[in-house]
């Protein structure tokens, strides 16, 4: 099914099942420990792999002595780059997943020891002796950012009007530099895979967000036929972008199984994960805002520097600044330096998450300079059209792009309720009780403050396919390679199929995460919920047609409800259509260029109250609220969970999360869950989430968008602004830990 015109009324609009706060259908499995994650697929005769990570950040392996390890009890095989055969590199990988002799980053996998038991593999891995020839690497973004280059892909730079002149002219100017650190996904399930070969066929149970990308890149890496791979990932214990791509666990499990001639299980050891896998890269951001005395932004500029391995990508932290606030003269610029740290890549809301951490502090600072309420300042600069007109098209013959370039035609947002988010949030949170003068409110030893920030995330769509089966007993089964990484895919897909086929939720079975199923959008970029259900919608439309034909209905007013098919006064049980055998339909929802004609984004407003200990500078969050406008909410219960989870991760980014770089050795030194602190229960208060009523017919037949990333966008800045309101201390370098607050805190 092509989707290139806004959705008309369709069966989803009934909202009998879709839009209802159903419990997760896989809930009883997850809460009883019966949902099987990758490493839990035990195979007969299986062996255990243990990964050896490189002990240097850059250089070469001078020698690797494996003889002693090979002789150790239970050892079956040792895989290294030397004996693994020729390996390719996945399209979406920057560094090799099995390193050697060249080492590209710290803890890059250099060997897998396969043994009869986990204990034996672990002990033998410690007997592998490696000598390195270390090389000088580049590990400091601050030092390397000057050599930053304009990235080749995407739109690293944008310019509208004349920023420089506009900024110079502005009555009130603001110019500041912000820092965000490297972040680790730190999902609870380590990257894990179980691989088994059957001749030249490879089966892998793994933990991956994007089955299709994973299978493609596994084929490329192993130089085998894509069709001989079956990748399965029915449950994913968290990903947050860290499992978007093929990672070393999959490759090593496959190579280990080949070498051992047995199924092999590999889970990355926790202390390896931070350096072995990807992370959200640190940024340095410069933000300049020029405005009139009455608070109208005339000029806005946002520059960002980040680093990655040679051939890697930038963190697109300026993206939201092209869309969020009005202003005639504007520029953004992205520069990428080469760093020899581990590979940087996407983490929950790449770009916007760190970008808004900076931009939304800057907005708070500018509001204060203008002596305008920070909410009013944002509302004053709200816009219903994209303020940054599309840049010159690569293809000059594209009339749509040309219209944009000409500037005659404004590009509207499909929905933009940013102001409404702020208004409702302010009312519910009690914004009017905020003292605009910082450091005035006390509660015992605590300094109390309130902060706000805008949330923004562009909506992305991905083509998504599904297969739907109607069985003789009336059960509807959906098969798609979509994954559920905690997002609620199982449930909203079941809701979609139930709504479309007019059956109760209990009559729907959902099977996910298998590369033998139709290729879906996968889970990433907050596109998964909307795109994958749209694919299921498309397949269900086909199944409805097949059912109608089978039952001899040809009317337009055909209705699927109460497990029956009805038209006029004729009604038949749905399952009758399958009485001669199962009916199967398959389709893919293909997204057209609607999103280029009408810009789709999701919006929100974050409200945070903090207490800062007046003695020690410890910040503790007291209240959090997010108001979101993100299209149709397919399941308010699971969507709310997405948002509270994002708020929690944003709270971590604001207050504690930082991969600490040892710039001498070039690695993240705090590489375990004791060193890299993420929020615990005690850090998180009750969280409130409000969804504004919204449907977006331009996004898909589901009229939904996404919230899983919107929720983290801006929340860090809301915390930062609350800390400023509480203490009067402005910190522009995350995380906002007490050591950064104390020097300017009032004496006690």
């Amino acid at each position, binding site marked *: 099914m092509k989707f290139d015109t806004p959705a008309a009324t369709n069966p989803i609009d009934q909202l009998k099942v879709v839009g209802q706060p159903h419990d997760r259908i896989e809930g009883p499995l997850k809460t009883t420990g019966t949902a099987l994650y990758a490493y839990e697929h035990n195979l007969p005769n299986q062996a255990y792999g243990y990964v050896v990570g490189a002990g240097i950040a850059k250089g070469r392996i001078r020698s690797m002595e494996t003889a002693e390890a090979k002789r150790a009890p239970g050892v079956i095989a040792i895989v290294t780059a030397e004996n693994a055969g020729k390996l390719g590199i996945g399209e979406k990988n920057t560094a090799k997943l099995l390193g050697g002799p060249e080492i590209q980053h710290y803890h890059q996998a250099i060997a897998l020891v396969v043994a009869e038991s986990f204990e034996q593999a672990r002990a033998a891995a410690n007997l592998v002796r490696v000598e390195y020839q270390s090389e000088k690497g580049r590990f400091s973004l601050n030092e390397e950012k000057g050599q930053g280059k304009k990235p080749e892909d995407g739109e690293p730079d944008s310019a509208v009007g004349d920023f420089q002149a506009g900024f110079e002219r502005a009555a009130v100017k603001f110019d500041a530099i912000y820092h965000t650190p490297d972040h680790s996904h730190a999902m609870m399930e380590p990257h894990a895979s179980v691989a088994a070969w059957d001749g030249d066929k490879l089966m892998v149970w793994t933990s991956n967000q994007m089955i299709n990308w994973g299978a493609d890149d596994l084929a490329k890496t192993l130089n085998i036929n894509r069709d001989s791979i079956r990748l399965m990932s029915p449950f994913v214990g968290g990903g947050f972008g860290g499992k978007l791509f093929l990672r070393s666990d999959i490759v090593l499990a496959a190579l280990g199984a080949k070498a051992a001639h047995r199924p092999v299980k590999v889970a990355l050891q926790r*202390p390896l994960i931070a350096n072995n896998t990807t992370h959200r890269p640190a940024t340095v951001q410069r933000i300049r805002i020029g405005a009139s005395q009455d608070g109208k932004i005339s000029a806005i500029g946002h520059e960002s520097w980040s680093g990655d391995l040679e051939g890697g990508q930038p963190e697109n932290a300026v993206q939201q600044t092209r869309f969020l606030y009005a202003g005639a003269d504007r520029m953004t610029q992205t520069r990428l330096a080469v760093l020899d740290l581990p590979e940087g890549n996407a983490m929950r809301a790449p770009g916007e998450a760190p970008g808004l951490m900076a931009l939304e502090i800057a907005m708070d600072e500018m509001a204060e300079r203008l002596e305008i309420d920070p909410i009013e300042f944002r509302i004053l600069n709200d816009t219903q059209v994209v303020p940054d007109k599309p840049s010159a098209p690569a293809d000059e013959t594209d009339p749509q792009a040309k219209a944009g370039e000409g500037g005659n035609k404004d590009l509207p947002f499909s929905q933009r309720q940013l102001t409404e988010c702020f208004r409702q949030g302010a009312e519910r949170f009690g914004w009017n009780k905020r003292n605009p003068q910082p450091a005035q409110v006390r509660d015992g030893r605590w300094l109390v403050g309130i902060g706000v920030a805008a949330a923004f995330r562009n909506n992305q769509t991905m083509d998504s396919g599904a297969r739907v089966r109607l069985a003789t007993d009336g059960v509807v089964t959906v098969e798609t390679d979509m994954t559920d990484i905690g997002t609620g895919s199982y449930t909203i897909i079941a809701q979609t199929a139930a709504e479309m086929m007019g059956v109760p939720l209990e009559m729907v079975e959902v099977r996910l995460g298998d590369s033998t199923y139709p290729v879906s959008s996968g889970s990433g970029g907050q596109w998964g919920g909307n795109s994958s259900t749209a694919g299921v919608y498309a397949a269900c439309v086909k199944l409805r047609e097949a059912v109608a034909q089978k039952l001899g209905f040809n009317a337009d007013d055909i209705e699927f409800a109460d497990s029956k098919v009805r038209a006029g006064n004729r009604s038949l049980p749905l399952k009758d259509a399958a009485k001669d055998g199962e009916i199967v339909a398959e389709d893919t929802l293909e997204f057209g260029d609607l999103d280029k004609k009408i810009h789709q984004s999701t919006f929100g407003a974050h409200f945070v109250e903090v207490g800062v200990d007046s003695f020690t500078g410890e910040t503790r969050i007291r209240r959090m609220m997010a108001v979101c406008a993100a299209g149709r909410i397919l399941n308010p219960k699971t969507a709310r969970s997405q948002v509270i989870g994002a708020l929690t991760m944003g709270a971590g980014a604001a207050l504690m999360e930082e991969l600490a770089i040892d710039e001498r050795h070039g690695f993240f030194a705090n590489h375990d869950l004791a060193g890299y602190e993420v929020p615990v229960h005690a850090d998180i208060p009750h969280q409130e989430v409000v969804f504004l009523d919204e449907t977006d017919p331009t996004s898909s037949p589901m009229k939904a968008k996404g919230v899983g990333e919107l929720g983290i966008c801006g929340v860090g800045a809301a915390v930062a602004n609350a800390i400023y309101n509480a203490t009067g201390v402005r910190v522009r370098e995350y*995380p906002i*830990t007490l050591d950064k607050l104390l020097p300017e805190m009032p004496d006690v």
Partner: protein
Amino acid sequence: MKSFSFERAQSPADAAAAAARQPDAKFIAGGTNLLDLMKLEIEVPTHLIDVNGLALDRIEDTEQGGIRIGALMRNTDLAAHERVRSDYGLLSRALLAGASGQLRNKATTAGNLLQRTRCPYFYDTNMACNKRQPGSGCSAIGGFTRQLAVVGVSDACIATNPSDMNVALRALDATVETVKPDGQTRAIPIADFHKLPGDTPHIETALEQGELITAVTLPKPLGGKHIYRKVRDRASYAFALVSVGAVIQPDGTGRFAVGGVAHKPWRVEEAESELSRGAPAVSQRLFADAKPTNENRFKLALTTRALASVVEEART
């Protein structure tokens, strides 16, 4: 983890004797620290002596009016013990500020006393560490040092003692009771139990080879207000940046020890006499010989402020 054999000890003296027979043996009780380190081969015992059956898990009153805490008493039980809560509140509070409920259910008094540092360079076996491998150097110095020690450091080591309990025991003037392989017992004042790193950071305590901790005694209760102020980035389940364990009397005098700043719980008795002059004066005495790094210099001011907070809390 290297392969090992094990035995279950029948008495403290047997345990100590067994340890003396095998130089690479270790006692195991809760195991929460030892197994963590064995998995990384930072600890590589070839033999474990399980002391869990030794019935050293009770509290009894001493003739001096204090208490004797069994070495194997779990942290949860110690913190929840009625007598400890009412008379040694500082100890309860310090224990409850540490680790998690699960870990406290396993961790023992003796194990907590012997808890090893959380220095990231000690934990990463690719890095040089004089504690792990004497003479290999200290890669923490000049590296990521935010958590590390600011006082009592040496050129060989800047690690901290991560225990909360030890801070309380130091302030409470605890005594560590042990049995040696030859059956002799001794009592080690807590002040002498933990060592500064000096040139031998791998020697962390006064214990000799095979010596087993059997109990910790506390003198008779001090009265006063018992406060444990632990400062950390996240609200729970985190090691202290700085902690202050104090007992403050109604007249404003008191005693305290500081955690998170040194290789041992940091107590300077002379500094306690400065309490009436305010936290900055106390801090000056506490940190007279401090050698912070740029990354952890904040611990000095933070300690001063945490102390001020404790004094304030004691007053109200």
